[in-house]
């Protein structure tokens, strides 16, 4: 029943046998053991499952694993080297951009792609970049602040945002 899937996840080449119906998010969570990518809605509204595919944000609950054949994926676990933090992770921490933390990986991944394109986004641009992510805890106030702070850090040369 399984089909062969070859791809790169967080810089590591993988070959796995997967069921054709396996969603990318469950491939990441259950086959790769990367549980930082979450499922919140099943219908692509909440964005908790956002990962980067070739640097672009995708909702991994609305993609089959096999559709990622040959791709290079980045998940929240791969955003920074072990023990280090990406500027967005630092900014979410410093700006209190999370409460329960369930939506946070998706926000950070979507914002990573946003800042890679535009490290100095306006309020409107942040709103457009993160319109596919829902948070129920923060009212988004500090998420917005965190994205701005991370943009400043990136512009100051803290580290280049990863793009896949």
């Amino acid at each position, binding site marked *: 029943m399984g089909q062969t899937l070859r791809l790169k996840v967080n810089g590591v080449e993988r070959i796995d046998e997967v069921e054709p119906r396996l969603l990318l998010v469950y491939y990441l969570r259950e086959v790769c053991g990367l549980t930082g990518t979450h499922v*919140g809605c099943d219908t692509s509204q909440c964005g908790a499952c956002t990962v980067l595919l070739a640097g672009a944000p995708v909702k991994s609950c609305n993609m089959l694993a096999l559709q990622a054949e040959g791709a290079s994926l980045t998940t929240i*676990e791969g955003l920074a080297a072990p023990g280090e933090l990406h500027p967005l992770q630092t900014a979410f921490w410093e700006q209190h951009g999370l409460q329960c933390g369930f939506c946070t990986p998706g926000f950070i991944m979507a914002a990573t792609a946003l800042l890679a394109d535009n490290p100095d986004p306006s309020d409107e641009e942040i709103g457009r970049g993160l319109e596919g992510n829902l948070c129920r805890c923060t*009212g988004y106030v500090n998420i917005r602040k965190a994205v701005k702070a991370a943009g400043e850090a990136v512009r100051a040369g803290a580290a280049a945002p990863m793009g896949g």
Partner: protein
Amino acid sequence: MAVSQLIGARVQRREDPRLITGRGHFIEDHVLPGLAHMAVVRSPHPHARIVGIDKAAAQSLPGVLAVLTAQDFKAQISGGMPVTPAFAPEKKYVPERFPIAESEVCFQGEPVAVVVATSRALAADAADLVQVEYEPLPAVVDPEAAMVAGSFKAHSDGPDNIGWDMTFAGGDIDAAFAKAEIRVSERILQQRLAPTAIEPRGVMADYSPYDERLTLWLSSQNPHFIRLFVSGAMGLPESHVRVVSPDVGGGFGSKISPYPEDYLVPAASRILSRPVRWIETRTESVMTTIHGRGQVFTAEAAALRDGTLLGLRLTQVLDLGAYHGTFGAFQACACLMSGGVYRWEAISARTVGVLTNKVPTDPYRGAGRPEGTHLCERMVDRVAQELGMDPADLRRKNFAQEFPYVNNFGLTYDSGNYDGTLDRALELVDYPGWRQRQAKAREEGRLIGVGLSTWVEICGFGPSQPTAAATGGIGLVEAAEIRFLPSGSVAAYVGTHAHGQGHDTTFSQIVADTLGVPLAAIEVHHGDTAEGPAFGYGTYGSRSLAVGGMALHQAATVVREKARQLAAHLLEASPDDLDFAQGTFSVRGNPAAHKTVQEVALAAYGGSLPEGMEHGLEAVSYFDPPNFVWPFGAHICVVEVDRDTGAVAIQKYVAVDDCGNVINPMIVEGQLHGGIAQGISQALYEEVVYDQESGQLVTGTMVDYLIPTMNELPVPTLDRTVTPSPTNALGVKGIGEAGTIASSAAVINAICDALSPLGIHHVDMPATPERIWRMIQEAAR
């Protein structure tokens, strides 16, 4: 003394590093060897008789381990799901609720069978193959229609649909109304809401058949109560059940009460002798996780022409859903809080709980207090409008001023300064400026409105005596334990549960200041019934700091005072002659003679203890608060309504709140941001919709149920005043629900103010463009 080094500081959250790196441990991240997966077969009908269930096709699918129905579970689970007295102790009809339906389904989504299989996808496939034959029955959808004698019944064997019908009498209402110079009345809707934590629910159970132990992992705000309920139903000693509630992705009240799956998953594990897990889908969540609100109020207020409030008479019709929620009657506290921050001669509040064929309602963030506040603040504005009085002036004229203040129902507000928060909010928003801009806009035909909401909240549950009556036995106190380990680090155990509130940080700040140890040496534990004190009371009702934080403070104080005794022995001084500062005991007048608290901790495990002193340095403490706590504040919203489309644009939102002393201002502000967002979202966007004819859920996904993105919400301006609570040593109140309690009224009052030139007095929630556009069209006729 090392007090207030960390208390009051913006300490960055200790829980964040794992969460921002994808290393959190949410329920779906837990797996066990041999884990089987459960899917639930749910009724597609809101009301039907079950004629038969054919399991054969599902059972024959390879990989299916079991197809189980009520028949199977009756041997595993005894009794019905619990219903507490809460604020409506005199119930008329409480339909029995077994976790899975046997002969009649009473809401869409009610479980009728479960499938357990070797994979989640297989379980879902097999669930579709279970053939259930139903005989549909008429669905009861509208609670007001369901109150009428002779209406269809939500349960075919019930006497009627009335769950409770009681009146709270606070003063001589007829005398108050007899003096009235003006009266206003209104009908105010509180739509059903889906709490919508971004993490759905989930349960994993591992029953160990030979030693009869059950471990239950679930996404819960309330693990000890779940252990109490599930152990009882499964016939297990409470001590044989361990409940672990790990990182929880939001609760908002929806993860307090026990759910059918909390019983069905462990029972399935016991039947199969292997671990079983069920993870809720979003559609299951909207369909079967509790809803909040779902109430209709009719109210009449009486006042004098000078603006003096006299009386308030109201009826709350509460849509219970198909069964009483475990804490569903808590929502009747809207009646007790309907007088808000004002002095009334009398209030008479009738509450009627009505059964319908929908998912049960239960506490959702604020639970009764947003409804009470919304009602009160709307009625006060209606009085002001009727009198042509400025709503700020009318409020000031009627504020409770002397504290403690006893309200019409005998509840004692601990402390307050309602003028203080209102004055600051008016200043911050530039109230006179907006009134001028409003007048100018009106000349141009534009619709600008300013809405006030001056609120007070009852929270911090305990005390034990009234809450034991409300839960049916367990008094809501809180327990905490401090263990000073020999090498000087501290383990703190609390019975509350954090799911976004940042307790690891706030509680560490309290312990650090009380014991004089660095933050890094403190580890806060919660969410595992195998650890810490015998019972924990969970997190809801903005109670964690005022009750749990106090329990922790007390336990740490007991430990510190034992350390003082031991330090005195080691220093050959009297305990009374010791100073304690920066974690060091020193002899007054001779600071060279000192012992650090860490040195004392090691000595507590050594061989030189004074006679009569037991070894160790640890303490369990229970805190039973002498009263509730009563945070308060003033919110002001400015809106512009588009006359052509009915769309509402929030121009400014100011919130000045007072939750007593603040441990971590960053976390307090975060709680307000989120709370305000949820209240605004109720005011403008959210509504669970059932088809009025068929009883089918229309808003079953996030496509249909509108959770706002960052583009729909304003950035509020926050400030605070500090009026400590006199009822606890920390002087703290609660802030988790405050924003939600205050904000819907501020938004709707602003919209009504904007629309008042058109003769529109009231707008219901959600104030969607369509609703407002229709009202504008109607008013123009």
